[in-house]
């Protein structure tokens, strides 16, 4: 399989960051960037990365199974992640997550019918000081309230 020229250039540069014989180290960033372009960890993608980094296929499966940010199912255009770990739970993260479920009409690890949003309940995002916290794609949002969440989702809908 082939990637876009931009991604290929990125990979070519990335590989050079690792000393000879240690290219295996590029596995996680490579999977992440490839996922952004392909949408999910397809078998073809796994085979391709396996070939490029000379990593056993099973080792890639292990990594995919371990890290929640790698997914086998394609996600929505915007991926909403809400933390319900201790700090966030105490400051209303749980309610926030329930609100998001209602607002989007989907549950954990599901995708809206129009494919615009997917939702995931996640563990600590490392932003306890500004709990409750959430992430939309690669952007953090702090001290989130249900109203702020509504506003955020509406604005994302408008930018379609």
């Amino acid at each position, binding site marked *: 399989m082939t990637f876009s020229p931009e991604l290929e250039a990125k990979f070519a540069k990335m590989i050079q960051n690792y000393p000879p014989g240690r290219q295996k180290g590029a596995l996680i960033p490579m999977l992440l960037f490839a996922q952004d372009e392909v949408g999910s960890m397809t*078998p073809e993608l796994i085979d391709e990365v396996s070939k490029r980094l000379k990593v*056993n296929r*099973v*080792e890639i*499966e*292990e990594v995919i*199974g*371990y890290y929640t940010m790698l997914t086998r199912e394609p996600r929505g255009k915007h991926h909403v992640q809400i933390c319900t770990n201790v700090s966030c739970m105490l400051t209303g993260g749980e309610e926030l997550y329930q609100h998001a479920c209602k607002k989007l009409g989907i549950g954990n690890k599901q995708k809206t019918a129009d494919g615009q949003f997917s939702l995931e309940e996640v563990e600590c995002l490392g932003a306890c000081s500004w709990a409750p916290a959430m992430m939309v794609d690669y952007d953090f949002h702090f001290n989130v309230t249900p109203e702020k969440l509504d506003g955020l989702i509406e604005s994302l809908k408008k930018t379609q």
Partner: protein
Amino acid sequence: MADPITLTIDGRQVKVPAGTLVIEAAKTVGIEVPSFCYYEGFSLQAACRMCLVEVEKMPKLQPGCTLPAAEGMVVYTESPKVVEARKGMLEFLLSNHPLDCPVCDKGGECELQDMTFRYGAGESRFVEIKHHVDEKQWSPAVYYDAARCILCYRCIRVCDEGLGVGALGLTYRGVAAEITPSHGDHLECDECGWCIDVCPVGALTSGTYRYKSRPWEMSYAGTICTHCSDGCKTTLSVRNGEVIRANNRDRSGVNGEFLCVKGRFGFDFVHSEERLQSPLLRKDGKLEPVSWSEALAAVAARFGEVKARNGKFGILGSTHTTNEENYFLQKFARQGLGTANIDHHRSGDVPALLDALSGKTGKLASSADLYNAKAALVIGSDLAQQHPFLAFQLRANFRHHQAAVYTVTSGTVREEQYAAKSLHCEAGQELASAQSLAEDLKKHGDLVILFGDAVRGQAVSQLVAFGESLGIPVKYVCLVDYANSRGAMDMGLLPDLGPGYHAAPAVGLSRDEMLAAADLDVLWVVGSNPFKTTAPAGTKTFTVVQDLFLTETAQRADVVLPAASAYEKNGTVTNVCGEVQRLKQGPKVMGTKSDLEIFGLLAKELGLNLGIWTADKVFEEIRRTVPGYNVPLPVIATGGAAQTAAVNGGVPSKGKPEYIRSAGDTLFTSGTLGRYSKMLNRVMEAPGQLYKP
């Protein structure tokens, strides 16, 4: 070796070499530290926490499996703290482990059962509903029940490190964590099934054995695998006369626990529906079932008649029959029938190697040498495919001792993954290519050279001259195909050489010449299938075949005698490294007779006096008369391996090396036997291919 260190374990002084792990140090004085994930010979994992021990001056309990013993260390393995920790670990492991022990294959030989019995708490504080996952079939040989898995990583390590296949991995986390096969929902691997054996619980189960028996309902026979020539010990589990499992958990034999797909699953040809269970006699052009006495009388009558008129016999021996049978057969031929026309399918030039090494001692490598040598050179063989155990030894040597392995082959081989240097060349040019490695090889302390049928005849002495010119100790292995290919040569199933490579009284026809001879009166084929590739020239030849199946050869025979397989026999076989080992009878198949008994009965029918035809008596005679076979009986009798060299002196005849060729079996084929093994044919990797990129 570094100076030994002294430590105290449970109040006892223990002296061990520096670097020894506490768990191993305890073993030396008979103290068992329980563990699941620790497995001798493989990388350390420290995943199961069962081996926690208390060490003085260390604040926390330490895993005995990763803690190296240190001078003056004081270790307690049964202190209240340790006992409590073990109980806790077992309670955790059982929190999600199904208690389906009454139907689980592992029940009775399960390490989790044993440890719970010995160290566990009788009660659990967990009341949560167990997380159930359905069983999965990964291949015809391997099934996985994730719920039973305790995530010890043993299977992953034996596959990755031991075999170099790496078909198993661990995916997901926490309660959802499970072992995953190489292709998502199925396995593509060597199908060796070692993962099933090492599994401490019943998470990995075997396609041939699952839900068939309880371990205490079976009898066990430790015998030698009858497929390739590596001579692995395989212990047959027999229930009601049927083999339902083969493994080698007691690590007896040269192979320890290693077995390939043939050793572990390839036993099922024994109970194939196509096994011959009655003698067949050609009547009016058709093979009809007859009684043994009728069949034997028919053969004896014709043999007697041909012998009386000085007719021409041709005798083809087998590469699967025992030493005793081979010895008796050549005696039958030379003394009984007075013919020199005896041969078998030769797959390696052992006589040429012995001749080239004449006068030198300690030049033949044992299978242990492959694990201990500093370097090894493989010439013209896809070792992982053709000699899985030898390949395993080299890989283990590389893992444990960083041995330098060199390969010279006509295509890609698995050893290249870790080889110091690999050369590819045109088939037939292997020896010439290997010589270019001289400078590399000289650097090492010692060397084992393994060569296949690419090096034969004159080339063998060139190879030995090359090896001896390196100036380092070199040992050799001449690779041959089948379980007793080596024994067939040692016992004199050769047209020009008798037992022990002594010159035969007369030189007879070789295998190919017999098949091409139009004037043979009798062709007697024992456990071989020459007509599959070569149609016999003789149209009036009376053909007698002893075999397990109605092979292409048997179909054209005049008399077919149903023989017992090696798993149904007692006797000895000699492996590729010249190690003599004992076969022990497992099952019995009705209607068959061992080849030795058939020879004996025929001799009796013919009125020949060839001696008593029991395996023990013939072996005694072999020990007396064949050089090198005077092996220590206690070693053989207790299931050990005794290395032998059947000659140390010039071999008087060069034979006809042009007729030497390997059958080229892969990991999933095994000549005729392999065709009748359902498992070897059912796995999706079959039939496999040599030198596969």
